[in-house]
């Protein structure tokens, strides 16, 4: 208990610390993304009359759920000063395994989900142990994992994925309860859980301690390896969960299901207040970042720009968004 309150005090001290101006800057880091989202909603409404339709808004939310779950995981890894570029291919692998192992049988939903979650935990454990124990570079380590996962997905499917999802399983992403998408409700539950662990438990606060200053955290008796490994495991497991929601949403699987997700997840985390090097941000900001990205892409769809315009807009938005935040942080 003693150590738990020490960590909490330290967390509070960190939050209280600094001048009023710095604090305002930190607040903006977290809330800025919501202002950006609000501005984007206004612009979208002006540009396209269809934007504010309930169906469209609910669609944006549904589409955001899988990426938002992945982005929360990515934010945890970035928080401890790490990095995970393998999330996109883990999403793809989750999608193709789920779509085959489920084999059109409702009885197999639970075993399938447990299987892919176990794979996710194993992937996160491997990444985390290499980075924490051997101190390998997170980027190259997860890059190697990315190639292994990509190859594994191809070897498993031989390039032509099955599509044996059951109707019942797909309800988690396409179903409604009283007009509210089930996926959004599930997401709120997952978000609340992750937020609680991160902000109100000792292991959660340790992520901040380790990310802020690894050496000080080590000297004050915090378990470095366990904390870093748990962040990578959480990231991979959340990525698998995101993959499950994605495959339930799109219904079919293809080998590019998760392509581009590493960039989007990392960008969402950075736009949402995380900082490369660690110690900053939470899981709320990244969700805002995902909503910003999804809304922009939705707008591209609504005004019927050609497909490649999505690439241009996404690339530009990511660079601009992250650049804006790097500017603010410099002050």
């Amino acid at each position: 208990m003693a150590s738990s309150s020490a960590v909490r005090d330290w967390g509070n001290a960190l939050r209280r610390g600094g001048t009023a101006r710095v604090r305002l800057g930190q607040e903006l880091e977290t809330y800025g993304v919501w202002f950006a989202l609000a501005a984007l909603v206004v612009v979208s409404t002006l540009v396209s009359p269809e934007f504010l339709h309930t169906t469209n808004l609910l669609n944006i939310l549904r589409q955001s759920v899988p990426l938002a779950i992945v982005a929360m995981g990515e934010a945890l890894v970035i928080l401890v000063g790490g990095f995970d570029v393998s999330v996109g291919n883990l999403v793809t692998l989750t999608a193709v395994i789920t779509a085959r192992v489920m084999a059109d049988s409702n009885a197999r939903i639970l075993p399938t989900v447990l299987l892919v979650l176990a794979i996710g935990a194993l992937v996160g454990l491997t990444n985390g142990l290499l980075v924490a124990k051997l101190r390998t570079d997170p980027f190259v380590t997860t890059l190697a994992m990315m190639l292994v996962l990509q190859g594994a997905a191809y070897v498993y499917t031989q390039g032509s994925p099955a599509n044996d999802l059951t109707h019942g399983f797909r309800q988690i992403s396409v179903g409604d309860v009283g007009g509210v998408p089930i996926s959004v409700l599930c997401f709120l539950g997952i978000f609340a859980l992750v937020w609680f662990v991160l902000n109100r438990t000792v292991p959660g606060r340790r992520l901040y301690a380790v990310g802020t200053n690894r050496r000080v955290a080590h000297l004050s008796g915090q378990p470095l390896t366990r904390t870093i490994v748990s962040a990578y495991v959480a990231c991979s497991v959340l990525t698998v969960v995101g993959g499950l929601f994605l495959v339930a949403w799109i219904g079919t699987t293809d080998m590019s299901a998760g392509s581009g997700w590493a960039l989007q997840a990392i960008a969402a985390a950075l736009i949402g207040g995380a900082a490369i090097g660690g110690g900053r941000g939470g899981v709320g900001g990244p969700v805002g970042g995902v909503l910003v990205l999804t809304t922009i892409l939705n707008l591209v769809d609504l005004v019927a720009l050609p497909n490649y315009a999505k690439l241009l807009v996404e690339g530009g938005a990511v660079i601009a968004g992250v650049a804006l935040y790097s500017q603010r942080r410099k002050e």
Partner: protein
Amino acid sequence: MPRPDSRSAVSAFQRWAGPVWVWTVVGAMVVAGSLGVADFALLSNFQAVGQAAVPLAVVAIGETFVILTGGIDISVAAMLSLGNTLSMGLMAGHEGRVWFAILLTVLAGLAAGATSGLIVAKLRVPSFIVTLGAANIVQGIVFAYTKQGTYGSPAPSLVNLGYANWGPFPALVILLLPLLAVALWVQNRTRAGRHVYATGGDPAIARLAGISVTRVRIAAFAASGGLAALAGVVISMRLGSGEPLAGTGFDWDAVTAVVIGGTALRGGKGGVGGTIGGVLIVAMINDFMNLQGISTFWQTVAKGVVIFAAVIAGAGTELLTRRRRQLLRHLPGSAAREAPAHG
């Protein structure tokens, strides 16, 4: 031979050719392949490996400079597609337009790379975010330019260059040599090269020493963009057309080759020589698997495993050195690392 001499010979070798162990692995792979893989030890196979390795080598040389400055360039795949389609579109099968097309293409790559570098250096945005974003943008432009289909064609004189041999040597390998010589010369014999190492080693100290870190970074990204576009021209000699997705996979292959070749991702350590070794390792892995009839699917897995092995080997040796220093100083962590180790 007295010891100091042999040591300086080794360090000269490392400066020009890269870590000894990289070339040991290359040698071991050649021996193992000759003994264990049917059809490996044939002149025609060595020529094929060389021809296939050249586009990657061109990309990886540029990537090396970016990584030496402490950055990373993920946009090389899209840049290669841009170079491939743009040069073929400009050339459109005309012999007279070869140099014009190559020049314009390389300039486009330089400009695009310099833009990424400018954002990285001036706005302090992490380079892999900028280049991933730039990759999206450049790929989008390529799709718009080509209408997402095969585009343009090479001049007749270029068509077969990709598979030609001059004497026993592949034409592409001979054409690569001047480029490699220039890269090595810039790296080891010019002020710009020293500035690259200084910037990657410690940007703050480099700045204090009067080096324009901004300019060095922009130049490195520009070089990477220009070389990736040039690799797009090279690959058109093998493809015979412009393909909007010609560069797919080159981003990770280039980073793999550079990292296996002993260049540190945090910058300041390594060089072009080792990268060439890394390129040969990647090319031989592909060749082994092709000769054994193993699917490209497994090749991706194998590449991942090779990077894991390289990363673990690198981290293992570093960990051992660090432990030794810690024992010497009875101090954990960074204090010992910052001070030079004695003995």
